[in-house]
């Protein structure tokens, strides 16, 4: 049997398929009851309305079942709220490699600043501009590089 933590951590985000839910920082806890063997997984959504949550829950249960943990429960918590600061360094590198500019650190006091320069994940140029602060998923904004003209997604700081 695979360790339940490893099994849950291997689940890939259904909307950004280059990064696992562990790297994204939404996997909060994996606990196994030593007596019953029942596994309890705790996750938190990126955005309150994230439509991927049902799929993520199903994927976690499937991964655990394959790993030999059929008796599993997935709980959702909202506090503390998810922050892009929880995305791991490895996760940030994978996002960049997939053409998604990773988020800058969240400014203190919870004030969301939108004026930070975002580097183009294709050519590395800082000469970029925001096309729309809302993108193909709730957590992304649409940007464009003025150097190489490529449009790209940017995971916005939250």
């Amino acid at each position, binding site marked *: 049997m695979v360790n339940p933590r490893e099994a849950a951590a291997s689940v890939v985000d259904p909307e950004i398929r280059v990064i696992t839910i562990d790297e994204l920082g939404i996997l909060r806890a994996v606990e196994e009851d030593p007596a019953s063997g029942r596994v309890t997984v705790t996750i938190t*959504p990126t*955005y*309150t*309305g*994230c*439509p991927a949550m049902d799929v993520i829950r199903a994927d976690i249960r499937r991964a655990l079942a394959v790993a030999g943990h059929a008796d599993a429960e997935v709980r959702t*918590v*909202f*506090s*503390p*709220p*998810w922050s892009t600061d929880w995305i791991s360094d490895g996760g940030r590198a994978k996002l960049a490699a997939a053409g998604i500019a990773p988020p800058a650190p969240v400014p203190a006091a*919870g*004030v*969301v600043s*939108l004026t930070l320069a975002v580097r183009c994940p294709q050519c590395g140029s800082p000469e970029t501009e925001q*096309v*729309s*602060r*809302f*993108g*193909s998923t*709730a957590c992304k904004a*649409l940007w464009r590089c003025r150097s190489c003209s490529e449009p790209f997604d940017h995971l*916005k700081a*939250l």
Partner: protein
Amino acid sequence: MNGPFDFTLGLGDDALIAAQRLAEWTTRAPEMEEDVALANIALDQLGAARLLLSYAGELESAGRDEDALAYLRDDREFRNALLVELPNGDFAVTMAKLFFLAAYQLPLYTALAGCADERLAAIGAKARKESAYHLDHGALWVKRLGDGTEESHRRMQAAVDQVWPYTHELFAADPAAPVDPATLRPAFDETVGAVLAEATLTLPGSGWAPAGGRTGVHTEHLAYLLAEMQVLHRAHPGAQW
């Protein structure tokens, strides 16, 4: 005056009805990026609505879940402020509604994050981050249109004049509520004053202040909105994707 159930239901209904109205723009927005933006904001509102209505159902302890509250109540049982049920109008009216709503929800959710009720505090802490983006988006358009062409200025000012009277209801005093809405007014006024000034727009004088949403007395527009929003669930109870 209102217990935690009525308070939570009111906020949940605000978010739900705002989500439904914003979603009406999907495939109809003036440009592709705006279509995506309004759908995203609608999704955030829907997410907050689901959390708030689920919790309201638990507070009520009458066996009603989020779906029962969203789909099986009639207009007189809804507790949203009138502001969110008003028709979208032109794009300027939609932006005036979005801007005023976000300027109210951001300090509201921020205050909720520090309130004594743990569940409401968690919802507030989560939703305020999203509200900051909504406020930024609404303010950007109010400024762009207000300080734009003669025609965009005229229409943005008309939209502000039309929607403004409906903002007063949001701040009706309720000292017993987890967060007294009256305490949110200074932050709202400060935000609105600064943005309208930059947009070269004039704040209408205070006068007519329509209200009634929090007690279930709505405009005629809500029943039409509900008829469309609820028809599938009522025609096929318990239907699932």
